[in-house]
């Protein structure tokens, strides 16, 4: 069978591969190379060694955005997942209207980041107005604004995944525990949570990478303001590239570090939570 298919490589694989090479593979490798260069377009790159990386670590904006992004990611990971898990539990109890609730909670997830950002800009500014401040008066408003926005967007998505996980647990197991006299909390701790560990892995992974890579929402909600205090990593990279003349190389160096961070965090997190999964 393999032999008869094999000749068809140009039909089955070549179109995808060509697009993949042009849009991803070549830009990726060039991206690594030019992070060691000084350039304004890709054709006039001069090799400068580690210069860009040294400038990057001296750049206060970069270090600040790294810290801001890390704090934001931790907070939104916890809040999104705790809420989504509780909603998942609530919506698997067979309450009337479960489908309607699920529909409503998931809806914001389909709205794009730019639109989400402007929706919350109006609402948060409206609330803050009574205190005489705005979103960009202080970095803490932007920070919690982003957290609220992220929760609104992601809770529904994660909830769907938790519901699927909880529904997979065999009812006999819960029944048996109840007969043995387990309380609701014990069942939750000893049965539900261990058995939905695969869902928890996925949800943590998705919230982690989504929060860490956030761009559109950041741009629309605060655009980094006040100053650059609420600028997250992705936005900082963008502004380094397109907002500062002579910093293109530094922008690319930041992007390389950004990629390494995302890849390392994702792999570590998958490794640690996968270890805690049990066979259902």
């Amino acid at each position, binding site marked *: *069978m393999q032999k*008869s*298919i094999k000749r*068809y*490589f140009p039909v*089955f*694989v070549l*179109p*995808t591969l060509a*697009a*993949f090479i*042009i*849009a*991803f593979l070549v*830009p*990726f490798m060039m*991206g690594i190379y030019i992070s060691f260069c000084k350039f304004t377009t890709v054709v006039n790159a001069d090799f400068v060694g580690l210069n860009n990386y040294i400038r990057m670590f001296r750049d206060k904006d970069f270090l600040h955005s790294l810290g801001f992004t890390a704090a934001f990611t931790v907070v939104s990971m916890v809040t999104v997942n705790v809420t989504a898990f509780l909603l998942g539990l609530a*919506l698997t*109890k067979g*309450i009337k*209207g479960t489908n309607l*609730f699920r*529909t409503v*909670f998931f809806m914001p*997830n*389909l*709205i794009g980041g*730019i639109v989400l950002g*402007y*929706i*919350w800009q*109006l*609402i948060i*500014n*409206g609330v803050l107005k009574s205190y005489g401040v705005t979103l960009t008066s202080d970095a803490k408003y932007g920070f919690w604004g982003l957290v609220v926005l992220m929760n*609104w967007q992601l809770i*529904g998505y994660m909830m*769907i*995944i938790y519901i*699927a996980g909880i529904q997979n*647990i065999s009812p006999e197991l819960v029944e048996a525990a*109840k007969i043995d006299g387990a309380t609701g909390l014990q069942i939750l701790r000893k049965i539900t949570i261990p058995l939905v560990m695969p869902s928890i892995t*996925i*949800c943590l992974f*998705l919230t982690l990478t989504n929060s860490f*890579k956030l*761009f*559109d929402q950041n741009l*629309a909600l605060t*655009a980094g303001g006040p100053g650059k205090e609420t600028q997250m990593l*992705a936005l900082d990279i*963008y502004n380094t590239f397109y907002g500062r003349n002579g910093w*293109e190389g530094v*922008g*690319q160096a930041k*992007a*390389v570090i*950004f*990629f390494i961070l*995302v890849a390392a965090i994702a792999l570590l997190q998958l490794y640690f939570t996968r270890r805690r999964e049990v066979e259902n």
Partner: protein
Amino acid sequence: MLELSKGKSRILTVLLMVLSALFITPVLIILMNSFKSKLYISDAPFRYPTSETFAALENYISGIFKTGFLQAFGWSTFITVGSVALILLCTSMTAWYITRVKNKVTGMLYYLFVFAMIVPFQMVMFTMSKIANMLYLDNPVGIIFIYLGFGSGLSVFMFSGFVKSIPLEIEEAALIDGCNPLKTFFGVVLPILKPTVITVAILNAMWIWNDYLLPYLVIGNDYKTIPIAIQYLRGGYGSIDMGAMMAMLVLAIMPIIIFYLTCQKYIIKGVAAGAVKG
């Protein structure tokens, strides 16, 4: 799962109702403000329009003209539909091939596609937009090809996962009966892949329709998609026309909600399936 007593389930229902109301409120506030005259929006976003502040469709008309919303809607639709169609066709074929033909090249390709999934866009945005420009891909047709390259990682991965679960015997029977691989793929394999096709289509459509940075960098100077048109309202440092902004937000959300309510079953299933695979 655990059954609840009547009282408890009533309390839970009330709690969920309050929470759902909170979830819908932001959209309703935007809708309400889109009918207020632009000067009254930022000042009192939570107040109902009165006869003094009511602006009828004024914001919608000025917003549509200011942003070129109708063209943006057209380009967003064209790019999303074109890209999703091309991604579905090409990546399902590729996934089948690299799963069925086992050698070093296909093995390496599989890992390359998986690798591409974790690379953030910022890593390639500068070089990719320059290459797109050099190869004359910086137009609405060219960008479809770029989306194929970018979307191929996740899509090939998801199709491959499903192809592995299809028993070989079905395809072998078709091939022995004299079908060539193309006929086998389109006649036998693709129909079995249908649930995955829907999942991959929904995930890609959600991403491409809402994508801002990629189209902005590649075609943003000449063509606006909806997210670009909305961001364009912010402009330079001046104040934003809040009236036009509210109207455009409503127009941007409406097609998504209509799409969601009509294909809800598939979207929720698709998301759950996509996440389990991811």
